[in-house]
């Protein structure tokens, strides 16, 4: 009996040695990011000391480049990272590097690499571009809120276009495009690459600031555009008094209260037969682009959903006319996904979304303040909404700081 018992004890000891080896658990890795300057910068340019960031799950870590323009991240958690960089160069540096003087305020150089999988020690080359936008989309309020009766309240939504430049800009004739926003993309970026060589954006609605008279936007000023230019503050603390809005998308059906004193936006195109104002989805996606062109936008091509020949048709806008775009996607319980991107990286290198999955939280997407210059605010524009935008429930209209 003792033999049997001892055998059992021995077997158990062997089992206790463990079937699991914890030593092969994943460990940290390193990432080296080499910056390549824009092709326009043919002259000498210093790439040392530039901040490169790697972001994942809302957390961001940064590293500085060495004299070769290489930033090294050590002790990195294996993850899927959005890698980006941006830095400013002065007008003089721009002149030295390009031989041109068309950027009197200097320029921003920016580069993005989204969803880069870092599983082992890795090296990546980050190409960059010169970003020079005078007009940017500064703020988008599409979430709506709950009113004092805890009911959904959507009429107070708006967005703003901000003038970054040092001089006033006539924004009359500027087009506003609302990007296609089906629950599954009508065209994925791969489909656009396949059929249009990555050269277009699909729009569901297009509006235009009237050309009947110039509308000068002062330096550091905002154009406020809304569906309902009334005072919404009595309905919810998240809402604003929009009676001072610059333009209003009129609701032909009369369901939304409009302000006859506010200039109407011109409706150029809509896929919705019964919706004449801006169809901003409270949970997203709600991408917006602003563009200028001399061609007849109404006559631009239209397409059905990829692979179909019936149903709604989206307007196909060549990207080269776009001044600025923001890729607003829907947040999900599994996290916002790049699979929902509608805008290619050269328009918006990232994505932005609400903290909620459903809207009605009073959240507004606000472009971050870069700095103050000569009394006006310069907003951050690295061509990457993931870095450039933040959410807020307290920032009000025409303000960009808490």
């Amino acid at each position, binding site marked *: *009996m003792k033999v*049997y*018992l001892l055998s*059992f*004890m021995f*077997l*158990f000891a062997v*089992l*206790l040695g*463990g*079937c*699991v080896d*914890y030593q*092969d*658990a*994943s*460990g*940290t890795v390193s990432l080296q990011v080499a910056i390549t300057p824009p092709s326009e910068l043919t002259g000498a340019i210093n790439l040392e000391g530039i901040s490169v960031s790697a972001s994942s*799950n809302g957390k961001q870590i940064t590293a500085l480049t060495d004299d070769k323009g290489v930033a090294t991240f050590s002790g990195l*958690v*294996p*993850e*899927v990272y959005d890698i980006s960089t941006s830095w400013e160069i002065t007008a003089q540096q721009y002149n030295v590097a390009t031989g041109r003087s068309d950027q009197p305020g200097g320029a921003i150089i920016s580069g993005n690499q989204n*969803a880069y*999988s870092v*599983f082992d020690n890795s090296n990546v080359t980050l190409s960059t571009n010169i970003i020079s936008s005078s007009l940017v989309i500064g703020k988008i309020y599409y979430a709506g809120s*709950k009113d004092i009766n*805890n009911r*959904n309240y959507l009429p107070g939504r708006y967005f703003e276009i901000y003038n970054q430049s040092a001089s006033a800009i006539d924004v009359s004739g500027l087009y506003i495009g609302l990007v296609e926003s089906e629950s*599954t*993309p009508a065209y*994925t970026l791969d*489909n656009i690459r396949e059929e249009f060589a990555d050269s277009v954006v699909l729009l569901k609605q297009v509006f235009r600031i009237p050309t009947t008279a110039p509308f000068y936007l002062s330096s550091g000023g905002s154009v406020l555009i809304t569906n309902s230019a009334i005072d919404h503050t009595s309905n919810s603390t998240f809402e604003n008094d929009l009676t001072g809005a610059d333009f209003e998308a009129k609701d032909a059906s009369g369901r939304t209260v409009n302000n006859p004193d506010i200039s109407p936006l011109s409706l150029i195109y809509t896929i919705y037969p019964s919706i004449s104002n801006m169809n901003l989805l409270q949970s997203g996606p709600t991408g917006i682009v602003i563009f200028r062109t001399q061609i007849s936008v109404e006559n631009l091509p239209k397409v059905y*959903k*990829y*692979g*179909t020949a019936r149903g709604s048709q989206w307007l196909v806008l060549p990207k080269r006319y776009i001044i600025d775009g923001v890729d607003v996607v829907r*947040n*999900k*319980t*599994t*996290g916002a*996904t*790049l*699979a929902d991107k509608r805008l290619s990286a050269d328009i918006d290198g990232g994505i932005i979304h*609400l*903290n*909620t*999955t*459903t*809207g*009605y*939280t009073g959240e507004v997407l606000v472009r971050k303040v870069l700095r103050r210059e000569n009394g006006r605010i310069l907003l951050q524009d690295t061509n990457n909404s993931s870095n450039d935008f933040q959410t807020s429930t307290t920032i009000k209209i025409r303000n960009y700081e808490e």
Partner: protein
Amino acid sequence: MKSKLLIIVLLSHSVVLWSNTPRQNILDLGNYMFFDAVRLWKNTNNAAGLSLDSLVHLGQSAINFGHRGGNFYKVQEGTRQNQFSFVSDQYQPVGKKLYGYGKFEFETGRIQERAWSDVFRSYNTNPYFTGSAIPGRYDYQNILLTASLATLPMGNFRYGMKVNYLLGDLSRLRDPRTRSNLLEYQLIPSVVYSLGENSPHHIGLNGYYKRRKEKIPNITTVQTDPSMQYYFMSGMENALGVASGFNGYNREWVDHRFGAELAYSYRIPHYYMLTTIGLEWGEESVYGTYKYEPGKYYGYRYHLHSQHRIFSSGNKIHQLDFQAQMQQDYADEYRQELTVSADPLTGYNSYHYHTILTLKKRYQVQTFETSAHYRLNITDQTSSRIDSYLGMKTTFVWMQNKYLLHTSYRKHNFMNVMLEAGKFLLNNRLKIDGHGLYHRALSTSQHLADNTTDYATQVLIPDLDYYGAHYWNGRMNISLQLPVTWKKHSSMIYITTFADYLRASTRQHSHRVGISLGLLH
């Protein structure tokens, strides 16, 4: 509630004291305790050994009410609990060649002020569960069925089969309202080989497959608060809170496990011994919408159980049990990407998550528990029943939860020393038994890579006080049993009340009270 229980107890006591019915020779709690002590194979998964233990026809049925309260509890346990259950089991020969055991258990209850876990298992288990930070009321209902069948000896072999079946329902009664459905079943074929017709040596072997599926198909809300957060856990303090995260939510946990157990039994008239070692391994998949997987959980369990019964001096049974079990689990964490593809012919969209990154063994669970239990049972000289007992048990437990990149961990080990005793009084009408236990937290340590997360501040850090506390615990059971005859069939009914009190070094306490009404048959 407590006053009503007291009235019931006093009334039942007075009925017994006034009764002049002579006690008949029918099985009672003492007999049940005796057969419980000497039947060793029932404490294993090997059903074939049941016919080695005993072929007695015995069972009991009872309804139980219980209440738990106090302020010494972990965050995910809830503050109070009321429970009702009905249990019935029976050992009996089946035909001429089989011996069987069956058990049915139904329990229902309500847990108050529970938070941060909407699933059945919250500790030392799969880290990919979900929950709300808002304390709420939970109702649960579980049904457990167990059936075992063993053959009488067929040559030197005995064969057996055991089936376990568990249905569970856990519902949260406050926004966000989850409802978790559980189904678990286990099939355990077994065999016992005797080394000769009258040999004292027996070798047993069983294997099993266990499948467990828990599912929360959706979450409903009565209020419409879009800012209400729902949390998705991934190990230690890592819990992602998503506003309105309950919208479009669905998740299921599917666990497949295999196991094997080897047993050796030595049985002579004055000494019974049964030692088993076992191994279990399996993996649990977690699925969300479109089969999204946050990760996969792997588990290994090992156990050793050695039981000894020494019969001496005609009326003493020395009961000695050693147990050791070890758990080694880990979770691989995934990073997945959603691809949407449209079929140009049908226009249908296909959604598919594929894994682009795997973080191996990012979450690890290790536990070890060992115990030694000695009990001296004094039996009735004239029948197979236990009249009184005295015992002692020591337990040592070590556990560790760890999350890598960046490293967070909690380590905890403790020891329990328990003294127990029980005796039948008043012509075996009254049984009083109980235990006193001292729990000593030997060491508790916790390091969190980020101690500012909601899960860290509201669960892990408060629970550390619980793990680090020493406490005293005492429990007393009082049972009254009396014979009843119905249609010429005699049985024994009993009423048991119990009270359990725990006092911790943190000046917190918890208590449990309950009452059972049962029938032996």
